[in-house]
């Protein structure tokens, strides 16, 4: 990942994190605010509900009181006390209920039995437990003829007999339904849904089997001002909790799969006089506002984040242009320098650190070039010095015998002719030999300076190794043991050939390769004056072929390894020091590599890596 990408990522992350943090904070805050508002609204509604409930209770009580105090009721009570005959009043309750606009009305006689019932006329004569209620008004579930029950707010008042000294004889039990119309009268805030769940179990008087303490939840019994309620089944846990515990319970309900349809609901149990829960009033405040706000904020956050990221991209691009570009340039230039192109330069812009860095880089490369030049010059000088020294050394060796010989000749001039002839003969022989040696040395140098371009041919590297081995170890070529007629002067050196079973083709100049291998073999033989083992092997290494020339001689020090391929560097007493340079040159001309693995006393292994021939191209 480059700096630009890192910058981009970093800036984007930064922007995203900041935006996310801000958005999350805002969302939390909004949620908190909305929830607080919901709680306040719910609390307000509950207090208003209680007021409305009391108001309705008062209305019912007043209506029932009015009926009980009315002349008709008093006459009924009087006549009932006189005659005990309740039959004439069978339909009284219906008329009274209609006049008073009550949904329920029963006239209950002194014996506690119903005289007349508006909501269930056929129940005359049955006992009415509500007639003995102690509270002024109370909730009650009233059984109806169709087997259902309806929730109502009831009041009970006693009727005083119309005779002056009469005692209370007859009771009026009246009530109004708590149903949708009651809910409609409640002051619901916008977005608030008021629902009522009532347990309308079967008629308790005629139940043929024991009823469970808390009947199963029935979604159909939950009604609101609009009639049915959306997602009634979702209310079940809340309502069941309120029914079981008798306490209000709250929670968030998801009425559909959409978050906008979630509500903040509170279930308030409505209890009878005995404390049993008859109904549950649910207040559900829509969270759509909050959700929408949250979604709005999220959208804004996303937008801001996207914008921020875009800005970050632009910023990063700008920064990259201003910072990472020069840095990349610097990096590229550094790579170039590392690759050997010390001429690499970077533009110098600005006066900031990047500019200073660029200038420093340029300065550095310039210095490097200069130093390289100087080094090259120095090395060249050193190499020339070395070459001169080697040349002087090499030349001096044959030149000294030449000099001696000439001197001998000069001195032999004074000698008798016969001695002079012999001396002349030996001296001329020596002169010729030394002149040949000089010519050889000069020929080496000349060869090194005029290394030919390789003429590539595809050969099996195994054949090259065999050729070299056969050249220097014929016996080895035929067999694997060194024999006395090994042409090598060190007849104790054993040559081992490790070739592959399959051909290993490379594109090389066979002669050059032979020459390089020969140099290596010679050096290896020179390194084992007391004998040893010389191993020639080749193996494929991926797309390259690896040639190994290993000896078991003295080994090389690390320093020697470093300078080994320097022309004219040699560890031998004699030699031009060009052998390994030639090897390196040949390997380099073939786009290969040469390395040495050695340790002191552990021999040395020269490893030549050459690219394998592209067999598909052949």
């Amino acid at each position, binding site marked *: 990942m480059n700096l630009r990408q890192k910058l981009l990522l970093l800036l984007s992350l930064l922007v995203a994190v900041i935006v996310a943090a801000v958005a999350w904070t805002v969302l939390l805050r909004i949620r908190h605010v909305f929830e607080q508002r919901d709680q306040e609204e719910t609390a307000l509604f509950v207090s208003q509900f209680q007021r409305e409930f009391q108001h309705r209770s008062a209305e019912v009580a007043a209506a029932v009181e009015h009926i009980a105090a009315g002349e008709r009721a008093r006459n009924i009570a009087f006549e009932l006390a006189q005659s005990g005959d309740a039959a004439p009043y069978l339909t009284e309750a219906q008329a009274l209920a209609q006049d008073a606009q009550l949904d329920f009305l029963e006239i209950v006689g002194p014996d506690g039995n119903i005289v007349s019932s508006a909501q269930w*006329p056929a129940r005359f*004569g049955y006992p009415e437990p509500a007639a003995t209620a102690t509270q002024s008004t109370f909730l009650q579930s009233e059984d109806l003829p169709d087997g259902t029950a309806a929730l109502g707010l009831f009041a009970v008042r006693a009727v005083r007999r119309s005779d002056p000294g009469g005692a209370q004889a007859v009771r009026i039990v009246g009530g109004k339904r708590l149903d949708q119309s009651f809910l409609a009268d409640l002051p619901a805030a916008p977005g608030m849904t008021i629902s009522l769940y009532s347990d309308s179990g079967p008629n308790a*008087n*005629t139940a*043929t089997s024991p009823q469970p303490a808390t009947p199963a939840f029935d979604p159909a019994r939950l009604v609101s001002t609009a009639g049915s309620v959306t997602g009634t089944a979702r209310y079940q846990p809340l309502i069941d909790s309120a029914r079981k515990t008798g306490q209000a319970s709250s929670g968030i309900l998801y009425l559909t799969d959409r978050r906008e349809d979630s509500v903040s609901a509170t279930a308030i149990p409505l209890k009878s006089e005995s404390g049993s829960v008859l109904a549950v009033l649910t207040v559900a405040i829509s969270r759509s506002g909050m959700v929408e706000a949250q979604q709005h904020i999220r959208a804004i956050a996303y937008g801001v984040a996207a914008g921020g990221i875009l800005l970050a991209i632009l910023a990063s691009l700008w920064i990259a242009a201003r910072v990472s570009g020069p840095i990349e340039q610097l990096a590229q230039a550094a790579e170039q320098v590392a690759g050997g192109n010390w001429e690499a330069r970077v533009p110098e812009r600005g006066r900031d650190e990047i500019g200073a860095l660029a200038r420093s880089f340029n300065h550095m490369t310039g210095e490097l070039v200069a130093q390289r030049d100087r080094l090259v010059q120095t090395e060249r000088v050193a190499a020339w010095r070395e070459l001169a020294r080697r040349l002087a050394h090499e030349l001096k060796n044959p030149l000294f015998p030449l000099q001696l010989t000439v001197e001998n000749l000069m001195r032999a001039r004074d000698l008798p002719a016969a001695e002079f002839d012999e001396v002349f003969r030996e001296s001329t022989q020596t002169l010729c030999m030394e002149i040949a040696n000089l010519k050889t040395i000069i020929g080496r140098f000349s060869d090194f300076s005029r290394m030919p371009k390789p003429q590539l041919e595809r050969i099996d590297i195994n054949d090259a190794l065999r050729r070299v081995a056969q050249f220097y170890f014929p016996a080895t070529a035929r067999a694997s043991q060194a024999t006395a007629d090994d042409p090598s002067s060190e007849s104790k050196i054993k040559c081992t050939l490790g070739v592959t079973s399959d051909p290993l083709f490379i594109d090389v100049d066979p002669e050059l390769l032979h020459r390089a291998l020969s140099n290596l073999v010679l050096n290896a033989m020179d390194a084992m004056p007391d004998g040893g083992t010389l191993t020639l092997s080749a193996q494929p290494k991926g797309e390259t072929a690896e040639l190994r020339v290993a000896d078991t001689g003295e080994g090389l020090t690390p320093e020697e390894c470093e300078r080994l391929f320097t022309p004219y560097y040699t560890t031998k007493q004699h030699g031009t020091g060009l052998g390994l340079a030639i090897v390196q040159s040949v390997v380099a001309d073939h786009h290969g590599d040469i390395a040495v693995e050695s340790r002191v006393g552990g021999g040395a292994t020269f490893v030549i890596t050459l690219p394998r021939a592209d067999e598909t191209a052949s």
Partner: protein
Amino acid sequence: MLRQIAISFLVAVLLLPAAARTRPHYGGTLRVEVEGDPWQRPGGLARQMVLDGLTAMGTDGTAGPALAVEWNSDNDNHRWQFRLRPGVHFQDGTPLSSANVVASLTAICGAGCPWTALHAVGSSVVFTSDSPLPNLPELLAGDDYRIALAGAGSPTGAPASIGTGPFQFTAFSNGVLTLAANDNCWQGRPFLDEVEIRVHRSMRDQWLDLSVGRADLVEVPAEQLRQAHEQRLTVVASPPVSLLAITVSDSGALSNPNLRAAIAFAVDRSAISNVIFQKQGEITASLLPAELTGYSFLFSPDRDQNKAHELRGGVTPPLLTLTVEGGPAMQLAAQRIALNLRDAGFNVQVASAGAPQHVDLALRRLTLESSQPQPALESILRAAGLAVPVMEQSPEGLYKVERQVLDTHMIIPLLYLPRACAVGGRVRDLLLSPDGAPQLAGVSLEDAP
């Protein structure tokens, strides 16, 4: 019981207009209001004014001559021959013939007639049956077998409405059925010129119209008799001639006779009689009232919840349907019965009659059409859709039949109720027929010109 009859009669008599009978005046239009359909069978007012039967029930409970002047039976009451009254014409002038009578009776009951065959023989009509029909004359006096000119439809869509009675159909518009006096009626022209029957009028509106003089004769349901007296209406009431009973299906859930018996024990007749019908009824557990038989006390009307539970035996039958037709009192009675049955462990739902469903229980009113016990029992059983067994003419035989029928618990008598109507000040000489229906043919109006 006789005392009750006398009292009823006396009550009826005392409630007549507070004046001695003046000589009848001819003319005038009698305005009648009814809640139901005056053409309905049985007991429709218009039917009784427009149509006659072969026989008519006398005040002594025996069948007297009407369109038939005499009759005889042979072959142990398997064959009856009725000789028609000569000189009688339908209201459109068609002479009454045996063929017309046969056609009319065949149209009435078709294959469901009590007789097997019916033939016109000269001026006589001959009935033959596989089982003896000892009370055929009384049966033919019933409202179901009035003779109409077959094929003569009515503009109102009502059944055939051309008969031989004292009144004839003239018009029906705006809910008012107009019947005009039949000048050629074989019984003599009625005193009234016209009778206007306003149909489907609520009870409240009927009484209101009566009180302001817009109506001359209105209905008074049994449960409102006391109220009518309190409002000082002039009421004419019959003895208890209408039997309130529950008919019980013997199929489905109630094929078990123990369940039917449990139902019989579960019903609280006292509450229905004393409260719903305001003590105007007589509680009964027998099909015939005491004044007809003298042994109705042998059938106990007491409620026994324990027995009901015992007979139900812990079985909880499926939901039973109790159908009812009639006014608010009938509906309330049905509701009360449903409540009683629920107390006994039955699950009952009240529905209006006519709903297309299997009927388990039906609350019905069956009318006594004769004051003779055997014909009366026969008419009750036929009206209830029960088989009519051969019955002896003795009280013991009658008791056996009644006991046998009631032990099946397919009919549960509850109470007997009177039929009544209220009349305005100008109505004279209103009598009630044995089944409690007002006999308008003999009515005259006080202020008729």
